[in-house]
């Protein structure tokens, strides 16, 4: 179907409108981070840019240690989630039982529960197990938090793989691990990669658990931002500088992996 000029104009406006709307807060945040604290609250677009806020933020907190925590926890959480999800999704996609559909829905339904509802029990569990303010504690909670989505996504990617290919592998002598390693993973690599990327991004941006379960030792960048919001009232320029530094790595990462992400998320849809 050919678009009429009118439809083209409409989709142009809609597309750019949405993009700008989504981009504006980030752009504004970056802009504010270069302002002085005095200009920060004014909507003035003309100001003398300075790196003062960045200097102050660096002086007050150890950005690199927060960033390192973020990297370790996000990567760790994603790897652990994938390690559990790959076999789980394999079992559900290729050896389904009567209860598979229900299990999937149940897993997803746990995402509908507000996390604050289980904060106290999890906090107590963490305290008893000595996991408070530890990276391994956060890795565990992030892995669990993303597990339903990771399983669900892998399941849909696996569903695209014809069963006969795995059966051929079985006839060729592959055991379950061989089927997954030699056939399933290479065949669904774009899907697994985009699932991993999504999980990384979700982990990186997670704030609720990191704020509640860490104090200093294992605190990631989300806690770093938060530390600039409270004590002495709001300093928007410094807050913006901290936020910009916190989101910069994932933005750059997202930018370079966007082709992979889009490919993975539309995998199968265009087959």
């Amino acid at each position: 179907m050919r678009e009429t000029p009118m439809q083209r104009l409409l989709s142009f406006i809609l597309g750019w409108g949405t993009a700008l709307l989504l981009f504006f807060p980030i752009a504004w945040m970056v802009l504010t981070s270069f302002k002085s604290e005095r200009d920060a609250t004014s909507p003035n677009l003309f100001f003398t840019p300075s790196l003062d806020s960045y200097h102050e933020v660096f002086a007050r907190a150890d950005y690199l240690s927060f960033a390192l925590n973020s990297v370790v926890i996000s990567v760790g959480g994603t790897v652990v989630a994938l390690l559990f999800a790959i076999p789980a999704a394999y079992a559900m996609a290729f050896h389904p039982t009567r209860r598979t559909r229900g299990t999937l829905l149940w897993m997803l339904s746990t995402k509908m529960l507000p996390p604050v509802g289980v904060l106290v029990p999890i906090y107590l569990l963490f305290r008893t197990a000595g996991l408070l303010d530890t990276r391994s504690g956060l890795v565990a909670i992030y892995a669990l938090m993303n597990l339903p989505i990771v399983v669900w996504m892998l399941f849909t990617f696996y569903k695209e793989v014809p069963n006969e290919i795995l059966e051929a592998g079985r006839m060729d002598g592959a055991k379950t691990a061989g089927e997954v390693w030699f056939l399933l993973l290479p065949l669904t690599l774009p899907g697994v990669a985009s699932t991993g990327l999504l999980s990384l991004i979700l982990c990186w941006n997670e704030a609720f658990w990191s704020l509640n379960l860490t104090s200093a030792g294992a605190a990631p960048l989300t806690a770093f931002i938060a530390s600039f919001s409270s004590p002495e009232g709001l300093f928007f320029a410094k807050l913006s500088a901290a936020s910009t530094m916190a989101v910069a790595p994932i933005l750059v990462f997202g930018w370079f992996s966007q082709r992979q992400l889009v490919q993975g998320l539309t995998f199968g849809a265009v087959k």
Partner: protein
Amino acid sequence: MATLQLRDIRKSFASVEVIKGINLEIGDREFVVFVGPSGCGKSTLLRMIAGLEEITSGDLMIDGKRINRVGPADRGLAMVFQSYALYPHMTVRQNMAFALRLAGVSKAERDRKVDEAARILQLEPYLERRPKDLSGGQRQRVAIGRAIVRQPKVFLFDEPLSNLDAALRGQMRIELLRLHEELKATMIYVTHDQVEAMTMADKIVVLRAGVVEQVGTPLELYHHPANLFVAGFIGSPRMNLMPARVVKSSGTGISVALPSGPEILVPVEGAGTASGDAVTLGIRPEGLRIEPSGAIAGTVALVERLGGLTLLHVTIEGGEPVTVQIEGSDATKARDQIRLAVDPAACHLFDKAGQALPQRARHPLAA
């Protein structure tokens, strides 16, 4: 060397029994074809032999050993799937070498075996390509090659030619037969196409609704079908089947009368039939010929001219449609009034239960 025995093999999905007690012996180097309409359980049976489907009850023996509980990888069988099921991310060489790689065979040995299989299948120029860059026929050959390199005890084929066009199908049939000669292996082949069954099989197993209807050589099934189902299923065009009544039984056979009057003497054993019994008369299309003094009168409804053969669709007195096959190109036109003579040797009689009455003389090629 490989023989197979199936003893009362059964399969149920939930509470539905789809394979209902199959007994079968498959000899070494035999080419056995499972044939039947879709849903008859032939693919399920093959997958049970392969180990991809659990056997609910019964014994599956290879070379005398019960292998019900042995995994597919350890049964020593290779399977060619209808969809080919090639590994899309591997080259042809890697596809064919995959089983050997898993088995820990050295690279040099793998290459030697793949090259050998590629030579047999004329795949040498394509070894470094991926499946998506191959034609349907080439993919099919890779799938067969993947089976060959493993030197399996038994080859299993699940409708391997059904995705190919007619010309290629004919060619692959011949290649598979040549391969069977060359490899001297036991092969089990599933198809719904009775031409494939007739042309390739040493032994055909006709299945219907999870039950074996008849086992025999192609010509045995053609000339001595055990029942109405096999009679109707084997042979193209189909055998003409029409209701008839027993007139009398004698030493030379049974005389039956068609509803419209004509009497035909069919050379079958008559024990157990009485005059007046309702039976079904079956006549192969090539057993009818146009003859001015023929017993059956009819009107030509449609003529199919195949060049070497002419098929007449005739409505005989009483309204029954029959097909007549004539050698060569025939001048008969639609709406012609003709008379048909019957070759008694091409006739079959089936009792009320659909079971064939035994022929008095065996066909010389179906002894």
